[in-house]
């Protein structure tokens, strides 16, 4: 796999981690949303990463080893099926007949940790991009 194709691999990771971060931020922003337009509390979302074979240039398809160079993509964005958190707030406009309000099952600490993980992985792949760029540059320097 050549250096330019590696930029695509790292790029796919940057995209996936960014999507992951966006989902986490959405969870955090909606941690207290008891009522959504669809009815019911906000449902926490999570991403599922899957390995992705990067589109290869036609001439190399024959010689490419399966499983050697792979990018990543967000395969699914799932809704967390955990039960909503119920708090007793009888005066609340969204309270049910028993006086409970349903809130999203979002744990801010968990979300923050996830966000930090996404940022760290993003930086890691940004470093890979920088390294690939440097190596391309150095390759060109072979010709003085």
């Amino acid at each position, binding site marked *: 796999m050549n250096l330019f194709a590696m930029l695509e691999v790292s790029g796919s990771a940057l995209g996936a981690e960014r999507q*992951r971060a966006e989902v986490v931020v959405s969870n955090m922003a909606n941690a207290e949303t008891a009522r959504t337009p669809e009815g019911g509390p906000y449902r926490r979302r999570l991403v599922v990463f899957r390995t992705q074979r990067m589109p290869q240039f036609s001439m190399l398809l024959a010689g490419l080893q399966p499983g050697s160079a792979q990018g990543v993509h967000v395969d699914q964005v799932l809704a967390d099926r955990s039960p909503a958190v119920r708090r007793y707030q009888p005066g609340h406009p969204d309270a049910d007949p028993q006086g409970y309000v349903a809130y999203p099952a979002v744990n801010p600490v968990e979300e923050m940790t996830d966000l930090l993980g996404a940022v*760290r992985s993003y930086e890691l792949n940004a470093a*890979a991009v920088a390294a690939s760029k440097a190596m391309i540059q150095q*390759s060109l320097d072979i010709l003085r």
Partner: protein
Amino acid sequence: MSLIDTPMLHLLGRFLDVSVFRHSLIASNMANIDTPGYRTQDLNFRSEMQRATGDFEYASFSPAVRKVEGLIERPDGNNVSLERESLLLAETQLRFQQGVQLLRAEFRRLSNAINEGK
């Protein structure tokens, strides 16, 4: 090709090829650091260097890619180590740079021999 293809050129060319391929594995590992079930891949630099025979193309270069043993596995089955890959990224890049410098020196030597011989 006999006069231009020195053993040193062949060796350095091969060195760059192996370095670039290893870099591609590191990039893949890094891209999949959060992919459930993904296992770290690598190649054996020394044995790939020793396998150098005759003339070959990077495009059809297929080294023995293997799974890395002894890494800590997380609950989702992923065993990519951020530290290991970061270290290897830096190391491989530096080695590549070194290889290019040596290659340029060898080309310079050949050029001098051709143009200022006798």
